[in-house]
């Protein structure tokens, strides 16, 4: 579904990604783990068109997307839940969901998508008139995930969904991700919290200093002695 071939990217002179290749198959959950500054966020920015790669190609459903604009890529079916949620704080919960369904096709299916979202996350229905900025940390992340589903994506990308949250709320956020996984969405999630993330993974990638160090099925991944020691603490 998503094929990334030899992507490099830089902020000005500062190279962040070095010839990364990875893929996400339909219905699969892929996780990219790695320390701070490994280029995980940059990778998602490049896929969603917020940052142009300096080298390499990206295909989505066979179509090349690395030269397309962000709003076009969203229309094709890739959505991103940015780190920290990045909600529109002065819009209501409902308006945040509405703007998530901005593209023409998503707008037509707005009612249906909204019913699904409220089924998946019932609290949002009670809070729909509230400003997004007044939600709690966990609810914000929930709304950010819900908002990204409103565009009717095939692939949902999540950038560090657990970052900055208390452990108890973190567990809830992973539970949200599990819920959308069970709905059949393909997922690409980057996380620092490798142990929790790997519980959800079908396939995992390890990024270090902008380079892909290791990849494999979730089971091979957790068996790798280096990953065990450095990222899982066992």
């Amino acid at each position, binding site marked *: 579904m998503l094929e990334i071939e030899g992507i490099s990217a830089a902020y000005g002179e500062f190279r962040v990604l070095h010839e990364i290749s990875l893929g996400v198959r339909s219905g699969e959950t892929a996780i990219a783990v790695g320390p701070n500054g490994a280029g995980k966020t940059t990778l998602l920015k490049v896929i969603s068109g917020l940052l142009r790669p300096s080298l390499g190609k990206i295909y989505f459903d066979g179509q090349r997307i690395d030269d397309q*604009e962000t*709003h076009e890529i969203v229309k094709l079916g890739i959505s991103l839940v940015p780190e920290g949620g990045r909600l529109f*704080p002065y819009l209501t919960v409902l*308006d945040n969901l509405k*703007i998530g369904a*901005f593209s023409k096709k998503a707008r037509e299916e707005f009612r249906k998508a909204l019913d699904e979202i409220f089924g998946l996350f019932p609290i949002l229905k009670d809070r729909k008139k509230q400003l997004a900025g007044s939600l709690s940390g966990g609810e914000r992340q929930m709304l950010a995930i819900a908002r990204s589903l409103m565009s009717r994506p095939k692939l949902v990308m999540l950038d560090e969904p657990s970052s900055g949250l208390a452990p108890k709320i973190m567990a809830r956020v992973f539970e949200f991700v599990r819920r959308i996984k069970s709905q059949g969405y393909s997922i690409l999630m980057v996380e620092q919290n490798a142990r929790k993330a790997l519980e959800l993974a079908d396939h995992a990638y390890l990024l270090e200093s902008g380079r892909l160090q290791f990849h494999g099925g979730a089971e091979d991944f957790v068996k790798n002695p280096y990953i065990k020691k450095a990222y899982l603490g066992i």
Partner: protein
Amino acid sequence: MFEQILNAAINGILLGGVLALLAFGLNLIFGVVKIIHMAYGQFVMLGLYLIYVLTMQVHLPLVLSALIAVFAMAILGLLTQLLVIGPLLEAPRLNQLLALAGLIIVFENLAMVIWGADYRGIPLYLPILKIGNFFIRGSCLFAFLGALITLGLLYLFLNKTYIGLAIRATAQDTEIVKLMGVNSRSVYFITLAAGGALTGIVAAFFTPIYTVHPHFGSSFTIMAFIIVVLGGMGNLLGGFISAFIIGVVTSVSAVLTTTEIADIIALLIFILVMLVRPQGLLGTRGI
């Protein structure tokens, strides 16, 4: 004396309505594109000239001239985005300001070359209304009501349409809105066109009140800017409230002193507010 002051306050409120409309456009552009449209008052000046030419020289009905002016100013807004603001979006702030300030010189001298320095106006006499002991200029009342209706329509546009929602979202987070499938460049164009159309509408309401000359716009750019900053930049409600404050303060102090001193008093109040609340009365926030 008390009645005179009250009368001045009423006139100030009427003036405040039009100022609110003027400041709204500047505020909207700042909120969405994060740029200060330095030549905003000059747009109004060009709009007034256009209405003058179409009515007095082409002999079109006034209402039709005004509609054409609104449309033409919207196009001018689009062109400003295309030729000046768009290419400078990633440029340093100072370059953006200088480029837009350059437009002031272009527009004012263009007007000077075409129409000369004469004051030009359409002879249009709306009655002065006497309500109780108060005297109200019909043209000001008309402008006030028109401005309020326009602001009401803008409120509905921003709050009830998908494009309006995209504009508000863009004002709150320029990057993330793209991830919602919004083409932010289109949003900028729509915002500049709307801001331009607003200057055309303001020009239409100004036509019965003012005569126009090439430097007509500068005082209104400053006035609109002060209102926007006083209310909190990008805060539409703040701009709305501070327009009435500035309107009433200038009008009342003009009665108590002179019009020149009235401007000084308004600016002093502005400076005092800035010293105490640099973020403006209601603070900066999204639309």
